[in-house]
Protein backbone atom coordinates (compact mmCIF):
# COMPACT_ATOMS: atom_id res chain seq x y z
CA UNK A 1 0.00 0.00 0.00
CA UNK A 2 1.13 3.50 -0.81
CA UNK A 3 -0.42 6.64 0.57
CA UNK A 4 -0.20 10.25 -0.37
CA UNK A 5 -1.74 13.41 1.04
CA UNK A 6 -3.71 15.46 -1.49
CA UNK A 7 -4.39 19.17 -1.00
CA UNK A 8 -2.29 19.55 2.13
CA UNK A 9 -3.57 22.27 4.43
CA UNK A 10 -6.99 22.72 5.93
CA UNK A 11 -8.98 20.41 3.66
CA UNK A 12 -6.75 17.52 2.74
CA UNK A 13 -7.59 14.03 1.52
CA UNK A 14 -5.49 10.90 1.51
CA UNK A 15 -5.12 8.72 -1.52
CA UNK A 16 -4.28 5.16 -0.59
CA UNK A 17 -3.24 2.78 -3.34
CA UNK A 18 -3.93 -0.84 -2.60
CA UNK A 19 -2.48 -3.82 -4.38
CA UNK A 20 -4.84 -6.67 -5.19
CA UNK A 21 -5.92 -8.37 -1.97
CA UNK A 22 -4.57 -5.62 0.30
CA UNK A 23 -6.85 -3.92 2.78
CA UNK A 24 -6.82 -1.05 5.25
CA UNK A 25 -9.08 -0.08 8.11
CA UNK A 26 -10.47 3.40 8.35
CA UNK A 27 -12.69 5.38 10.65
CA UNK A 28 -16.25 4.64 9.59
CA UNK A 29 -17.50 7.28 7.22
CA UNK A 30 -13.98 8.29 6.18
CA UNK A 31 -14.22 7.01 2.61
CA UNK A 32 -14.82 9.71 0.01
CA UNK A 33 -14.39 7.77 -3.21
CA UNK A 34 -12.79 4.57 -4.44
CA UNK A 35 -12.02 2.46 -7.48
CA UNK A 36 -14.71 -0.07 -8.35
CA UNK A 37 -12.35 -2.87 -7.35
CA UNK A 38 -12.55 -1.85 -3.70
CA UNK A 39 -15.09 -3.45 -1.38
CA UNK A 40 -16.21 -1.80 1.82
CA UNK A 41 -16.83 -4.04 4.79
CA UNK A 42 -17.68 -2.89 8.23
CA UNK A 43 -15.72 -4.66 10.82
CA UNK A 44 -15.84 -4.61 14.56
CA UNK A 45 -12.22 -4.42 15.55
CA UNK A 46 -11.55 -6.62 18.57
CA UNK A 47 -14.83 -8.51 18.22
CA UNK A 48 -18.25 -7.32 19.24
CA UNK A 49 -17.38 -6.67 22.88
CA UNK A 50 -14.15 -4.95 21.96
CA UNK A 51 -15.99 -2.70 19.54
CA UNK A 52 -18.77 -2.05 22.03
CA UNK A 53 -16.35 -1.15 24.78
CA UNK A 54 -14.45 1.10 22.44
CA UNK A 55 -17.67 2.81 21.44
CA UNK A 56 -18.91 3.22 25.00
CA UNK A 57 -15.62 4.01 26.61
CA UNK A 58 -13.61 6.02 24.14
CA UNK A 59 -16.50 7.39 22.14
CA UNK A 60 -14.73 6.14 19.02
CA UNK A 61 -16.91 4.85 16.25
CA UNK A 62 -18.39 1.43 16.88
CA UNK A 63 -17.29 0.06 13.54
CA UNK A 64 -14.19 0.60 11.60
CA UNK A 65 -14.65 0.13 7.93
CA UNK A 66 -12.36 -2.19 6.07
CA UNK A 67 -11.56 -1.23 2.51
CA UNK A 68 -10.40 -4.26 0.60
CA UNK A 69 -9.01 -4.40 -2.93
CA UNK A 70 -10.72 -7.73 -3.46
CA UNK A 71 -11.16 -7.50 -7.25
CA UNK A 72 -7.78 -6.20 -8.25
CA UNK A 73 -5.66 -3.17 -7.39
CA UNK A 74 -7.28 0.19 -6.82
CA UNK A 75 -7.24 3.39 -4.87
CA UNK A 76 -9.29 4.91 -2.07
CA UNK A 77 -9.75 8.53 -1.14
CA UNK A 78 -10.20 9.18 2.57
CA UNK A 79 -11.01 12.38 4.44
CA UNK A 80 -11.68 13.27 8.07
CA UNK A 81 -14.83 15.06 9.27
CA UNK A 82 -13.20 18.18 10.62
CA UNK A 83 -11.03 20.64 8.73
CA UNK A 84 -7.44 20.01 9.56
CA UNK A 85 -4.22 18.37 8.58
CA UNK A 86 -3.47 14.72 8.03
CA UNK A 87 -0.23 13.05 8.96
CA UNK A 88 1.02 9.69 7.65
CA UNK A 89 3.32 7.68 9.92
CA UNK A 90 5.11 4.42 9.39
CA UNK A 91 5.01 2.21 12.45
CA UNK A 92 8.03 -0.04 12.78
CA UNK A 93 6.70 -2.61 15.24
CA UNK A 94 8.51 -1.07 18.20
CA UNK A 95 7.11 2.41 18.36
CA UNK A 96 3.71 2.76 19.91
CA UNK A 97 1.52 5.82 20.03
CA UNK A 98 -1.23 6.92 22.34
CA UNK A 99 -3.90 8.60 20.22
CA UNK A 100 -6.79 10.68 21.50
CA UNK A 101 -10.13 9.36 20.37
CA UNK A 102 -10.76 11.58 17.34
CA UNK A 103 -7.24 11.37 16.00
CA UNK A 104 -7.41 8.05 14.10
CA UNK A 105 -8.27 8.23 10.41
CA UNK A 106 -6.96 5.02 8.90
CA UNK A 107 -4.31 2.36 9.24
CA UNK A 108 -2.88 -0.69 7.55
CA UNK A 109 -4.49 -3.92 8.66
CA UNK A 110 -1.31 -4.92 10.46
CA UNK A 111 -1.68 -1.91 12.75
CA UNK A 112 -3.05 -2.96 16.15
CA UNK A 113 -5.53 -0.72 17.93
CA UNK A 114 -6.54 -1.15 21.53
CA UNK A 115 -8.43 0.96 24.02
CA UNK A 116 -6.34 1.83 26.99
CA UNK A 117 -7.61 3.09 30.28
CA UNK A 118 -5.52 5.77 31.83
CA UNK A 119 -5.07 6.83 35.41
CA UNK A 120 -7.77 8.73 37.24
CA UNK A 121 -6.05 12.12 37.37
CA UNK A 122 -5.12 12.00 33.72
CA UNK A 123 -8.61 10.86 32.80
CA UNK A 124 -10.40 13.47 34.87
CA UNK A 125 -8.24 16.40 34.01
CA UNK A 126 -6.39 15.47 30.85
CA UNK A 127 -9.33 16.36 28.67
CA UNK A 128 -9.15 13.23 26.49
CA UNK A 129 -11.42 11.20 28.74
CA UNK A 130 -10.47 8.04 30.57
CA UNK A 131 -9.70 6.04 27.48
CA UNK A 132 -7.22 6.47 24.71
CA UNK A 133 -6.36 4.42 21.69
CA UNK A 134 -3.02 2.69 21.91
CA UNK A 135 -1.82 2.05 18.40
CA UNK A 136 1.13 -0.21 17.68
CA UNK A 137 2.10 -2.90 15.23
CA UNK A 138 3.72 -2.40 11.91
CA UNK A 139 2.58 -0.44 8.90
CA UNK A 140 1.05 2.85 7.85
CA UNK A 141 -0.96 4.87 10.34
CA UNK A 142 -2.89 7.95 9.25
CA UNK A 143 -3.91 10.50 11.86
CA UNK A 144 -5.95 13.65 11.49
CA UNK A 145 -6.22 16.78 13.56
CA UNK A 146 -8.36 19.86 13.96
CA UNK A 147 -6.23 22.60 12.44
CA UNK A 148 -2.60 22.06 11.59
CA UNK A 149 -0.53 19.25 13.11
CA UNK A 150 2.62 20.29 14.88
CA UNK A 151 5.25 17.76 15.88
CA UNK A 152 7.21 18.29 19.06
CA UNK A 153 10.37 16.22 19.41
CA UNK A 154 11.59 15.57 22.89
CA UNK A 155 15.03 14.31 23.85
CA UNK A 156 15.36 12.13 26.93
CA UNK A 157 14.19 14.07 30.01
CA UNK A 158 13.31 17.10 27.92
CA UNK A 159 10.01 18.62 29.05
CA UNK A 160 7.33 20.50 27.20
CA UNK A 161 3.97 21.83 28.27
CA UNK A 162 0.87 21.32 26.12
CA UNK A 163 -2.70 22.50 26.65
CA UNK A 164 -4.58 19.24 27.05
CA UNK A 165 -7.23 19.87 24.40
CA UNK A 166 -4.60 20.34 21.72
CA UNK A 167 -3.21 16.81 22.00
CA UNK A 168 -3.47 14.45 19.04
CA UNK A 169 -0.99 11.64 19.66
CA UNK A 170 2.21 10.95 21.53
CA UNK A 171 4.81 8.20 21.76
CA UNK A 172 4.34 5.62 24.47
CA UNK A 173 7.88 6.37 25.62
CA UNK A 174 6.83 9.81 26.82
CA UNK A 175 4.98 10.35 30.03
CA UNK A 176 3.03 13.32 31.25
CA UNK A 177 1.71 14.89 34.39
CA UNK A 178 -1.32 17.10 34.66
CA UNK A 179 -0.65 20.49 36.15
CA UNK A 180 -2.38 23.75 36.75
CA UNK A 181 -1.47 26.23 34.02
CA UNK A 182 -0.47 28.94 36.46
CA UNK A 183 0.74 28.67 40.02
CA UNK A 184 -2.62 29.61 41.55
CA UNK A 185 -5.99 27.96 40.97
CA UNK A 186 -7.75 31.19 40.07
CA UNK A 187 -4.98 32.30 37.74
CA UNK A 188 -5.04 28.87 36.09
CA UNK A 189 -8.61 29.26 35.02
CA UNK A 190 -8.68 32.98 34.35
CA UNK A 191 -5.74 32.50 32.02
CA UNK A 192 -8.08 30.33 29.97
CA UNK A 193 -5.80 27.34 30.06
CA UNK A 194 -7.05 25.43 33.09
CA UNK A 195 -5.01 22.28 33.10
CA UNK A 196 -1.97 21.58 31.01
CA UNK A 197 0.09 18.46 30.41
CA UNK A 198 3.77 18.47 31.21
CA UNK A 199 5.31 15.97 28.80
CA UNK A 200 8.64 14.39 29.46
CA UNK A 201 10.75 12.85 26.69
CA UNK A 202 12.07 10.95 24.94
CA UNK A 203 9.55 10.74 22.15
CA UNK A 204 7.31 12.70 19.85
CA UNK A 205 4.14 14.63 20.69
CA UNK A 206 1.73 15.63 17.92
CA UNK A 207 -0.48 18.57 18.72
CA UNK A 208 -3.25 20.29 16.78
CA UNK A 209 -3.25 24.04 16.22
CA UNK A 210 -6.96 24.41 17.08
CA UNK A 211 -8.95 23.40 20.12
CA UNK A 212 -12.19 21.58 19.14
CA UNK A 213 -13.98 22.41 22.39
CA UNK A 214 -13.27 26.12 22.17
CA UNK A 215 -14.24 26.15 18.51
CA UNK A 216 -17.55 24.50 19.40
CA UNK A 217 -18.23 27.13 22.03
CA UNK A 218 -17.40 29.86 19.55
CA UNK A 219 -19.75 28.45 16.91
CA UNK A 220 -22.54 28.00 19.41
CA UNK A 221 -23.00 31.73 19.89
CA UNK A 222 -23.96 32.08 16.22
CA UNK A 223 -26.51 29.31 16.18
CA UNK A 224 -30.01 30.82 16.39
CA UNK A 225 -31.96 29.54 19.35
CA UNK A 226 -35.18 27.95 18.18
CA UNK A 227 -38.12 26.98 20.29
Amino acid at each position, binding site marked *: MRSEILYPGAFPMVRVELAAGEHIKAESGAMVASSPTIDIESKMEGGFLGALSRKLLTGEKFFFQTLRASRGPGEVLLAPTVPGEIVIMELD*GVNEYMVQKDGFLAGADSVAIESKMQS*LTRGLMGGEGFFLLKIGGKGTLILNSFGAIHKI*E*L*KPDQEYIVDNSHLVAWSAT*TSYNIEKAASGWVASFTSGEGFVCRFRGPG*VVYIQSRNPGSFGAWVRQFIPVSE
Partner: protein
Amino acid sequence: MTEFQPNALCFGQEFPASGEPCLVQVEDHGITVMFLSGAAEDRSESASFSALTVAAGGFDHDQLVVRWVGAAGERTLYLKHPDVIRAFRQAAPDQLRAPLDRAAEHVRQARHRHRMVWSVIGGTVLVVVLGLWFGSDLLVEMAVDRIPVEWEQKLGESAYKDFLAQQDVMKEGVAVSAVEEITHRLVEQIPNSPYKFEVTVVKSDVVNAFALPGGYIVVFTGLMKKADSGEEVAGVMGHELNHVLQRHGLERIVKQLGLVAVLSIVLGNHQGLAGMMKQLGVELLTLKFGREQETEADLTGLQLLHRAKIDPSGMIRFFEQLSEKDEGRTEWLSTHPMSGARAERLKAELAAMPKMVPAPFSFDWTKVRGALGGEPAAKP
Protein backbone atom coordinates in the same frame (compact mmCIF):
# COMPACT_ATOMS: atom_id res chain seq x y z
CA MET B 1 22.52 -12.26 7.74
CA THR B 2 19.21 -13.23 9.29
CA GLU B 3 16.35 -10.79 9.39
CA PHE B 4 16.20 -9.21 12.83
CA GLN B 5 13.07 -7.83 14.34
CA PRO B 6 13.75 -4.73 16.43
CA ASN B 7 12.78 -5.18 20.05
CA ALA B 8 13.63 -1.82 21.60
CA LEU B 9 13.90 1.89 20.92
CA CYS B 10 17.17 3.74 21.33
CA PHE B 11 17.35 7.46 21.90
CA GLY B 12 20.44 9.57 21.41
CA GLN B 13 21.66 12.83 19.97
CA GLU B 14 21.84 11.68 16.34
CA PHE B 15 18.71 9.51 16.39
CA PRO B 16 15.20 10.67 15.48
CA ALA B 17 13.11 12.00 18.33
CA SER B 18 10.73 9.07 18.09
CA GLY B 19 13.67 6.72 18.74
CA GLU B 20 15.72 4.40 16.58
CA PRO B 21 14.42 0.83 16.39
CA CYS B 22 17.14 -1.55 17.46
CA LEU B 23 17.78 -5.10 18.49
CA VAL B 24 18.99 -5.56 22.03
CA GLN B 25 20.84 -8.70 23.01
CA VAL B 26 21.63 -9.46 26.58
CA GLU B 27 25.02 -11.08 27.13
CA ASP B 28 27.05 -12.06 30.16
CA HIS B 29 29.05 -8.88 30.38
CA GLY B 30 26.36 -6.44 29.34
CA ILE B 31 24.17 -5.58 26.38
CA THR B 32 24.73 -5.20 22.67
CA VAL B 33 22.52 -2.91 20.66
CA MET B 34 22.28 -3.44 16.93
CA PHE B 35 20.80 -0.83 14.63
CA LEU B 36 19.06 -2.24 11.65
CA SER B 37 18.09 0.76 9.58
CA GLY B 38 18.48 4.48 9.23
CA ALA B 39 21.75 6.37 9.50
CA ALA B 40 23.23 3.90 11.97
CA GLU B 41 22.43 0.83 9.87
CA ASP B 42 24.46 -2.28 10.56
CA ARG B 43 26.23 -0.66 13.43
CA SER B 44 26.29 -2.07 16.89
CA GLU B 45 27.18 -0.68 20.28
CA SER B 46 27.96 -2.49 23.48
CA ALA B 47 27.77 -1.42 27.07
CA SER B 48 28.85 -3.33 30.14
CA PHE B 49 26.48 -3.72 33.04
CA SER B 50 28.70 -1.54 35.22
CA ALA B 51 28.04 1.46 32.97
CA LEU B 52 24.25 1.14 33.05
CA THR B 53 21.58 2.80 35.16
CA VAL B 54 18.03 1.49 35.09
CA ALA B 55 14.58 2.87 35.92
CA ALA B 56 10.93 2.33 35.02
CA GLY B 57 9.49 4.68 32.45
CA GLY B 58 7.14 5.29 29.59
CA PHE B 59 3.52 6.39 29.48
CA ASP B 60 2.27 3.49 31.58
CA HIS B 61 5.47 3.05 33.59
CA ASP B 62 5.73 -0.41 32.10
CA GLN B 63 8.98 -0.01 30.18
CA LEU B 64 12.49 -0.54 31.41
CA VAL B 65 14.67 2.49 30.73
CA VAL B 66 18.39 1.74 30.48
CA ARG B 67 20.86 4.62 30.24
CA TRP B 68 24.58 4.86 29.73
CA VAL B 69 27.21 7.13 28.25
CA GLY B 70 29.07 5.34 25.49
CA ALA B 71 31.63 6.29 22.91
CA ALA B 72 28.88 7.81 20.74
CA GLY B 73 27.44 9.90 23.58
CA GLU B 74 24.44 9.52 25.84
CA ARG B 75 22.16 6.60 25.11
CA THR B 76 18.68 5.92 26.45
CA LEU B 77 17.13 2.57 25.71
CA TYR B 78 13.43 1.78 26.17
CA LEU B 79 12.85 -1.95 26.63
CA LYS B 80 9.31 -3.16 26.46
CA HIS B 81 9.43 -6.74 25.33
CA PRO B 82 8.89 -8.95 28.40
CA ASP B 83 11.42 -11.55 27.20
CA VAL B 84 14.18 -8.96 26.86
CA ILE B 85 13.37 -7.48 30.27
CA ARG B 86 13.43 -10.95 31.82
CA ALA B 87 16.76 -11.80 30.17
CA PHE B 88 18.18 -8.49 31.34
CA ARG B 89 17.12 -9.07 34.92
CA GLN B 90 18.56 -12.59 34.93
CA ALA B 91 21.92 -11.56 33.52
CA ALA B 92 22.31 -8.36 35.54
CA PRO B 93 25.03 -8.41 38.19
CA ASP B 94 24.38 -7.68 41.83
CA GLN B 95 25.03 -3.96 41.70
CA LEU B 96 22.11 -3.56 39.25
CA ARG B 97 19.82 -5.83 41.24
CA ALA B 98 18.71 -3.16 43.70
CA PRO B 99 17.77 -0.55 41.07
CA LEU B 100 16.06 -3.25 38.99
CA ASP B 101 14.03 -4.34 41.97
CA ARG B 102 13.15 -0.73 42.64
CA ALA B 103 12.03 -0.31 39.02
CA ALA B 104 9.98 -3.50 39.20
CA GLU B 105 8.46 -2.37 42.48
CA HIS B 106 7.66 0.97 40.90
CA VAL B 107 5.84 -0.74 38.03
CA ARG B 108 3.96 -3.00 40.43
CA GLN B 109 2.93 -0.06 42.58
CA ALA B 110 1.78 1.97 39.59
CA ARG B 111 -0.27 -0.98 38.35
CA HIS B 112 -1.61 -1.67 41.80
CA ARG B 113 -2.62 1.93 42.33
CA HIS B 114 -4.23 2.04 38.91
CA ARG B 115 -6.17 -1.11 39.63
CA MET B 116 -7.11 -0.01 43.15
CA VAL B 117 -8.43 3.35 42.03
CA TRP B 118 -10.51 1.79 39.29
CA SER B 119 -11.88 -0.96 41.50
CA VAL B 120 -12.84 1.59 44.14
CA ILE B 121 -14.61 3.66 41.49
CA GLY B 122 -16.24 0.58 39.99
CA GLY B 123 -17.29 -0.60 43.42
CA THR B 124 -18.75 2.76 44.35
CA VAL B 125 -20.73 2.96 41.13
CA LEU B 126 -22.01 -0.56 41.70
CA VAL B 127 -23.02 0.19 45.30
CA VAL B 128 -24.82 3.37 44.27
CA VAL B 129 -26.66 1.60 41.45
CA LEU B 130 -27.62 -1.34 43.65
CA GLY B 131 -28.54 1.03 46.45
CA LEU B 132 -30.84 2.99 44.21
CA TRP B 133 -32.27 -0.19 42.76
CA PHE B 134 -33.11 -1.79 46.07
CA GLY B 135 -33.43 1.35 48.16
CA SER B 136 -35.72 3.17 45.76
CA ASP B 137 -38.85 1.75 47.40
CA LEU B 138 -37.70 3.05 50.75
CA LEU B 139 -36.90 6.45 49.26
CA VAL B 140 -40.26 6.54 47.52
CA GLU B 141 -42.04 5.77 50.80
CA MET B 142 -40.11 8.47 52.59
CA ALA B 143 -40.99 10.95 49.90
CA VAL B 144 -44.66 9.97 49.87
CA ASP B 145 -44.81 10.41 53.64
CA ARG B 146 -43.86 14.03 53.23
CA ILE B 147 -46.56 14.90 50.73
CA PRO B 148 -49.51 16.53 52.54
CA VAL B 149 -52.92 14.89 52.20
CA GLU B 150 -54.43 18.15 50.87
CA TRP B 151 -52.08 17.94 47.91
CA GLU B 152 -53.06 14.43 47.25
CA GLN B 153 -56.73 15.41 47.39
CA LYS B 154 -56.26 18.32 45.00
CA LEU B 155 -54.39 16.11 42.62
CA GLY B 156 -56.96 13.33 42.77
CA GLU B 157 -59.84 15.80 42.55
CA SER B 158 -58.62 17.44 39.35
CA ALA B 159 -58.09 14.07 37.67
CA TYR B 160 -61.47 12.88 39.01
CA LYS B 161 -63.33 15.90 37.64
CA ASP B 162 -61.59 15.69 34.30
CA PHE B 163 -62.55 12.08 34.04
CA LEU B 164 -66.18 12.47 35.15
CA ALA B 165 -66.71 15.37 32.72
CA GLN B 166 -66.43 12.90 29.85
CA GLN B 167 -68.53 10.18 31.44
CA ASP B 168 -72.19 9.39 31.87
CA VAL B 169 -72.51 9.70 35.66
CA MET B 170 -75.35 7.93 37.41
CA LYS B 171 -76.74 10.41 39.99
CA GLU B 172 -79.50 8.43 41.70
CA GLY B 173 -81.30 5.12 41.74
CA VAL B 174 -81.04 1.82 43.53
CA ALA B 175 -77.56 1.17 42.20
CA VAL B 176 -76.24 4.46 43.54
CA SER B 177 -77.82 3.95 46.95
CA ALA B 178 -76.46 0.40 47.05
CA VAL B 179 -72.93 1.66 46.34
CA GLU B 180 -73.39 4.41 48.91
CA GLU B 181 -74.43 1.86 51.51
CA ILE B 182 -71.41 -0.31 50.75
CA THR B 183 -69.13 2.72 50.96
CA HIS B 184 -70.64 3.79 54.25
CA ARG B 185 -70.29 0.31 55.75
CA LEU B 186 -66.62 0.20 54.74
CA VAL B 187 -65.65 3.78 55.58
CA GLU B 188 -67.10 3.70 59.08
CA GLN B 189 -64.54 0.98 59.81
CA ILE B 190 -61.68 3.33 58.98
CA PRO B 191 -61.39 5.60 62.01
CA ASN B 192 -59.27 8.75 61.83
CA SER B 193 -59.08 8.56 58.06
CA PRO B 194 -57.67 11.78 56.62
CA TYR B 195 -59.65 11.11 53.44
CA LYS B 196 -63.26 11.95 52.70
CA PHE B 197 -64.13 9.13 50.36
CA GLU B 198 -66.26 10.01 47.39
CA VAL B 199 -67.70 7.28 45.22
CA THR B 200 -69.31 7.79 41.83
CA VAL B 201 -71.14 5.26 39.69
CA VAL B 202 -70.44 5.64 35.99
CA LYS B 203 -72.65 4.14 33.30
CA SER B 204 -70.35 2.00 31.22
CA ASP B 205 -70.17 -1.62 30.23
CA VAL B 206 -66.50 -1.69 31.13
CA VAL B 207 -65.95 -4.10 34.00
CA ASN B 208 -63.78 -1.84 36.13
CA ALA B 209 -63.42 0.24 39.26
CA PHE B 210 -60.56 2.46 40.24
CA ALA B 211 -59.32 4.70 42.99
CA LEU B 212 -57.55 8.03 42.67
CA PRO B 213 -55.28 9.52 45.31
CA GLY B 214 -57.20 11.51 47.89
CA GLY B 215 -60.14 9.13 48.15
CA TYR B 216 -61.95 9.43 44.82
CA ILE B 217 -63.40 6.13 43.68
CA VAL B 218 -65.18 5.31 40.45
CA VAL B 219 -67.31 2.17 40.00
CA PHE B 220 -68.52 1.25 36.53
CA THR B 221 -71.98 -0.24 36.10
CA GLY B 222 -70.36 -2.97 34.00
CA LEU B 223 -68.66 -4.27 37.11
CA MET B 224 -71.93 -4.22 39.06
CA LYS B 225 -73.76 -6.10 36.33
CA LYS B 226 -71.10 -8.76 36.39
CA ALA B 227 -71.21 -9.18 40.17
CA ASP B 228 -73.53 -11.77 41.67
CA SER B 229 -73.95 -10.02 45.01
CA GLY B 230 -73.34 -6.77 46.87
CA GLU B 231 -70.55 -8.51 48.77
CA GLU B 232 -68.62 -9.00 45.55
CA VAL B 233 -68.77 -5.30 44.73
CA ALA B 234 -67.85 -4.56 48.34
CA GLY B 235 -64.78 -6.76 47.89
CA VAL B 236 -63.57 -4.77 44.91
CA MET B 237 -64.31 -1.49 46.68
CA GLY B 238 -62.50 -2.62 49.81
CA HIS B 239 -59.49 -3.33 47.64
CA GLU B 240 -59.68 0.07 45.92
CA LEU B 241 -60.20 1.96 49.20
CA ASN B 242 -57.00 0.45 50.47
CA HIS B 243 -55.06 1.65 47.45
CA VAL B 244 -56.07 5.11 48.62
CA LEU B 245 -55.29 4.49 52.29
CA GLN B 246 -51.86 3.07 51.52
CA ARG B 247 -51.22 6.01 49.14
CA HIS B 248 -50.33 3.61 46.37
CA GLY B 249 -51.24 6.08 43.64
CA LEU B 250 -48.90 8.63 45.10
CA GLU B 251 -46.14 6.05 45.31
CA ARG B 252 -46.53 5.26 41.63
CA ILE B 253 -46.51 8.92 40.68
CA VAL B 254 -43.43 9.58 42.71
CA LYS B 255 -41.74 6.60 41.09
CA GLN B 256 -42.67 7.89 37.67
CA LEU B 257 -41.51 11.38 38.45
CA GLY B 258 -38.18 9.90 39.31
CA LEU B 259 -35.48 10.25 41.79
CA VAL B 260 -34.98 13.98 41.40
CA ALA B 261 -38.56 14.57 42.42
CA VAL B 262 -38.20 12.13 45.31
CA LEU B 263 -35.15 13.95 46.56
CA SER B 264 -36.81 17.34 46.25
CA ILE B 265 -39.70 16.09 48.34
CA VAL B 266 -37.46 14.52 50.96
CA LEU B 267 -35.37 17.66 51.10
CA GLY B 268 -38.48 19.80 51.32
CA ASN B 269 -38.80 21.56 47.98
CA HIS B 270 -42.48 21.12 47.15
CA GLN B 271 -42.82 24.02 44.77
CA GLY B 272 -41.91 22.90 41.28
CA LEU B 273 -43.28 19.47 41.95
CA ALA B 274 -46.92 20.57 41.99
CA GLY B 275 -46.74 21.40 38.29
CA MET B 276 -45.19 18.08 37.39
CA MET B 277 -47.76 16.16 39.39
CA LYS B 278 -50.60 18.05 37.77
CA GLN B 279 -49.27 17.02 34.37
CA LEU B 280 -49.34 13.45 35.49
CA GLY B 281 -52.94 13.81 36.67
CA VAL B 282 -54.38 12.40 33.47
CA GLU B 283 -51.98 9.51 33.57
CA LEU B 284 -53.44 8.65 36.95
CA LEU B 285 -56.40 7.10 35.22
CA THR B 286 -54.21 4.53 33.54
CA LEU B 287 -52.11 4.03 36.61
CA LYS B 288 -51.15 0.47 37.18
CA PHE B 289 -50.20 -0.58 40.62
CA GLY B 290 -47.29 -2.85 41.33
CA ARG B 291 -47.70 -6.45 42.37
CA GLU B 292 -46.71 -5.71 45.97
CA GLN B 293 -49.20 -2.89 46.14
CA GLU B 294 -51.93 -5.19 44.82
CA THR B 295 -51.17 -7.82 47.42
CA GLU B 296 -51.17 -5.18 50.13
CA ALA B 297 -54.51 -3.81 48.96
CA ASP B 298 -55.90 -7.37 48.79
CA LEU B 299 -54.97 -8.20 52.35
CA THR B 300 -55.94 -4.88 53.92
CA GLY B 301 -59.11 -4.93 51.83
CA LEU B 302 -59.95 -8.35 53.23
CA GLN B 303 -59.39 -7.12 56.78
CA LEU B 304 -61.59 -4.11 56.11
CA LEU B 305 -64.42 -6.33 54.85
CA HIS B 306 -64.03 -8.47 57.93
CA ARG B 307 -64.31 -5.47 60.25
CA ALA B 308 -67.32 -4.17 58.34
CA LYS B 309 -68.97 -7.59 58.75
CA ILE B 310 -69.28 -8.04 55.01
CA ASP B 311 -68.82 -11.63 53.85
CA PRO B 312 -65.25 -11.64 52.42
CA SER B 313 -65.86 -14.79 50.43
CA GLY B 314 -67.71 -12.55 47.96
CA MET B 315 -64.43 -10.82 47.17
CA ILE B 316 -62.61 -14.08 46.60
CA ARG B 317 -65.45 -15.50 44.53
CA PHE B 318 -65.55 -12.43 42.35
CA PHE B 319 -61.79 -12.56 41.78
CA GLU B 320 -62.00 -16.19 40.80
CA GLN B 321 -64.95 -15.58 38.56
CA LEU B 322 -63.13 -12.78 36.77
CA SER B 323 -60.01 -14.82 36.27
CA GLU B 324 -62.00 -17.65 34.73
CA LYS B 325 -63.74 -15.46 32.21
CA ASP B 326 -61.13 -14.37 29.81
CA GLU B 327 -63.05 -11.52 28.25
CA GLY B 328 -61.39 -8.67 26.46
CA ARG B 329 -63.58 -6.08 28.08
CA THR B 330 -62.74 -7.02 31.62
CA GLU B 331 -60.67 -3.92 32.25
CA TRP B 332 -60.26 -4.57 35.90
CA LEU B 333 -58.29 -7.66 35.03
CA SER B 334 -55.83 -5.81 32.86
CA THR B 335 -54.84 -3.61 35.74
CA HIS B 336 -55.34 -6.35 38.30
CA PRO B 337 -53.76 -9.45 36.85
CA MET B 338 -55.55 -12.33 38.44
CA SER B 339 -53.72 -15.39 39.50
CA GLY B 340 -54.79 -18.52 41.28
CA ALA B 341 -52.11 -17.85 43.85
CA ARG B 342 -53.70 -14.53 44.70
CA ALA B 343 -57.10 -16.03 45.43
CA GLU B 344 -55.46 -18.91 47.32
CA ARG B 345 -53.54 -16.46 49.45
CA LEU B 346 -56.74 -14.62 50.34
CA LYS B 347 -58.45 -17.90 51.22
CA ALA B 348 -55.62 -18.84 53.55
CA GLU B 349 -55.72 -15.39 55.12
CA LEU B 350 -59.47 -15.64 55.58
CA ALA B 351 -59.18 -19.05 57.26
CA ALA B 352 -56.78 -17.58 59.80
CA MET B 353 -59.21 -14.81 60.74
CA PRO B 354 -61.64 -15.16 63.64
CA LYS B 355 -65.12 -16.25 62.61
CA MET B 356 -67.67 -13.49 62.22
CA VAL B 357 -71.33 -13.40 61.40
CA PRO B 358 -71.83 -11.31 58.28
CA ALA B 359 -74.46 -8.61 58.45
CA PRO B 360 -76.40 -8.50 55.17
CA PHE B 361 -76.92 -5.33 53.16
CA SER B 362 -80.31 -3.66 53.22
CA PHE B 363 -80.65 -3.67 49.41
CA ASP B 364 -81.78 -6.50 47.22
CA TRP B 365 -78.98 -7.16 44.75
CA THR B 366 -81.32 -8.75 42.22
CA LYS B 367 -83.25 -5.45 42.01
CA VAL B 368 -80.06 -3.45 41.74
CA ARG B 369 -78.91 -5.55 38.84
CA GLY B 370 -82.33 -5.44 37.30
CA ALA B 371 -82.29 -1.64 37.48
CA LEU B 372 -78.95 -1.63 35.69
CA GLY B 373 -80.38 -3.80 32.94
CA GLY B 374 -78.22 -6.76 33.67
CA GLU B 375 -79.45 -10.33 33.72
CA PRO B 376 -80.97 -11.35 37.07
CA ALA B 377 -78.57 -12.85 39.54
CA ALA B 378 -78.19 -16.59 39.21
CA LYS B 379 -79.47 -18.17 42.36
CA PRO B 380 -76.74 -20.25 43.89
